[in-house]
């Protein structure tokens, strides 16, 4: 019933109203602009972070698994003393011997030791005790010299692997294979150089120097009840679930856990961490959504206010439009369209600013946000939110305009 000409003029009128009251429109839409801009920027940062972290996880490998000691939830502390739930070297051996789906497995124990070479000395460096399988599990191999062999482990040889950073920090020759270093006051021979991987996202090490020694040697350097974790990998990602069950079965049996009793360890595959991270990211996105909802609410009240002003300013115009045949519906739609247009223009400016902010984020060195970008769904959602805000908060003024009595309106000063 409303002809195309109506829509054409309603839209052009909506824009010309904004244009005619530029500064007023800007101030009115400011709430929406700020809300949309900040939310799109947050979502952009989050998206960047997410793809970064996920690719990090990917590089770690989907077939990887971890075993940690874990006290059952809600269990009394004295029922599960720490020394009882710590992983034991015998348990790693059992996993290696009995789990058919486990392709490679290594215990890892870390101990802080002072390392010396000549007159260079680094204090409290993290020295990790590992098995030869570690290379395969971590996907990091030896670039110079040789990896550990089973003999190194079995006969507790005092050999070590180091990385490039450690060579630099200890002022060792470019090819230090065969050189001696003092680790915790003991003399070790450098057997090989482990390849350097890209700066790790979760690498919290203050020093990026790394030193590895045979697990059996590290065991001796540790106290009686030391902390160790197990890292391993399954033959393929498809077997990850079955493989985890296998590992849990072996560990339950080793620990004598009866059916129905809680486990005192945790077996986790990488997908679990991805899942956790995704949940976290979704949570932050939801909070960002909440922020945008609040800012749109505040912005919407501004819109409603200005539309009420507009209706009362243009009362005579409304009267005239009604006199020449505008139905209440036509007036309602006209004002609703104006409110929606105002909100959408605000949303557009907000998204533009948000994009700009996202671009700015990618340029911050070391912020790990090179991949920050406003996803299309966020843009679409912003516009939908803005349009809904326009409809919701424009409704009251529009109904007011539609209900105006044409006679009263034409008499209005």
């Amino acid at each position, binding site marked *: *019933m409303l*002809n*195309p*000409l*109506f829509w054409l*003029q309603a839209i052009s009128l909506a824009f*010309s109203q904004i244009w*005619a009251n530029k500064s007023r429109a800007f101030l009115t839409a400011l709430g929406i602009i700020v809300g949309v801009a900040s939310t799109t920027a947050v979502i952009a940062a989050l998206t960047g972070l997410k793809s970064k972290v996920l690719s990090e996880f990917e590089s770690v490998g989907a077939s990887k698994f971890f075993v940690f000691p874990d006290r059952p939830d809600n269990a009394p502390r004295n029922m599960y003393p720490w020394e009882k739930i710590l992983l034991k070297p015998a348990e790693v051996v059992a996993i290696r011997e009995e789990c058919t789906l486990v392709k490679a497995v290594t215990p890892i124990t870390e101990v802080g030791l002072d390392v010396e070479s000549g007159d260079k000395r680094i204090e409290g460096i993290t020295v990790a005790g590992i098995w030869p399988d570690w290379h395969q599990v971590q996907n990091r191999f030896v670039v110079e010299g040789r990896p550990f062999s089973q003999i190194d482990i079995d006969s507790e040889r005092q050999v070590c692997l180091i990385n490039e950073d450690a060579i630099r920090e200890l002022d060792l020759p470019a090819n230090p294979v065969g050189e001696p270093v003092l680790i915790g006051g003991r003399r070790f021979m450098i057997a090989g150089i482990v390849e350097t991987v890209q700066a790790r996202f979760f690498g919290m090490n203050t020093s990026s120097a790394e030193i590895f020694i045979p697990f059996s040697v590290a065991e001796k350097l540790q106290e009686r009840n030391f902390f160790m974790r197990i890292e391993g990998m399954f033959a393929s990602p498809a077997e990850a679930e079955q493989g985890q069950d296998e590992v849990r079965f072996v560990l339950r049996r080793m620990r004598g856990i009866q059916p129905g009793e809680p486990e005192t360890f945790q077996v986790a595959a990488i997908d679990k961490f991805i899942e956790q991270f995704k949940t976290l990211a979704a949570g932050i996105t939801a909070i960002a959504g909440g922020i945008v909802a609040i800012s749109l609410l505040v912005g919407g009240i501004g819109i409603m206010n200005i539309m009420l002003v507009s209706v009362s300013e243009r009362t*005579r*115009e409304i*009267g*005239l*439009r*009604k*006199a*020449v*045949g*505008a*139905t*209440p*519906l*036509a007036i309602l739609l006209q004002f609703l369209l104006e409110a929606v247009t105002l909100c959408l223009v605000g949303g557009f400016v907000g998204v533009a600013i948000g994009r700009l902010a996202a671009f700015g984020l990618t340029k911050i060195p070391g912020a790990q946000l090179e991949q920050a970008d406003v996803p299309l769904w966020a843009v679409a959602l912003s516009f939908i939110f803005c349009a809904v805000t326009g409809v919701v908060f424009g409704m009251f003024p529009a109904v007011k305009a539609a209900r105006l009595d*044409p*006679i009263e309106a*034409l008499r209005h000063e």
Partner: protein
Amino acid sequence: MAEPAAAAAGAPLIEVRALAKIYRVGVETIHALRGLDLTIGRNEMVAIMGSSGSGKSTLMNMLGCLDRPTSGAYFLNGRDVSRMGARELALVRNEEIGFVFQSFELLPRQTALENVELPLVYATGAWRGRRARALAALERVGLQDRVHHRPNQLSGGQRQRVAIARAILNKPAILLADEPTGNLDSATTAEILSLFRALHQEGQTIVIVTHEDEVAAHCQRVVRLRDGRVLSDLPIAQDVAGRFLAQHAAGGASC
């Protein structure tokens, strides 16, 4: 000249029966119209006069379908419009009524052409060819060279011509003018009234609400109201306003 109340071919254009309008303002009840009867035929040019409070504004609002009566009936073009809803009345106004107001009521930011096109925005049917129609209407009122001017670039008389062009755009059944010359000087008033007469000669039915006898003298028939009823309904020659007839004749009808 046609006789008062003489119906043109067929049913009268406007037929008002026992029209009453009661306003309640707080506890007070105001009887604006008290059972008014009025018939206006096709192609009549009628002046409605009366002092303030006589009910002439209320009657104009009724005739213009801007308001509904408390009781009574109003047949416009054979249709009972007194019981229509707001939406239907809007459509009737769009198609059957052309308003001309004392203060022109043009949209200030729109050009003359856009102002004239306004009724087509709300038309249900033929909105195509709007530009040509609007241009034709502007040409009819002699403003073909002011098409893209905005109201503030036009004189008072020109503004009222734009308003008249807007009113006749949809070829309405009635051209309803409410004190159309109230804001104009005497020279411009004469121009506008000549324009009305020319439109009347082309077949347009015109109702002018005024309190000036000089303006009423341009019509064929004068309806005077008092206290919400028709006081007198006479051909112009028999009305008091008729004394200005000779003057107009001397001035000549130019358009």
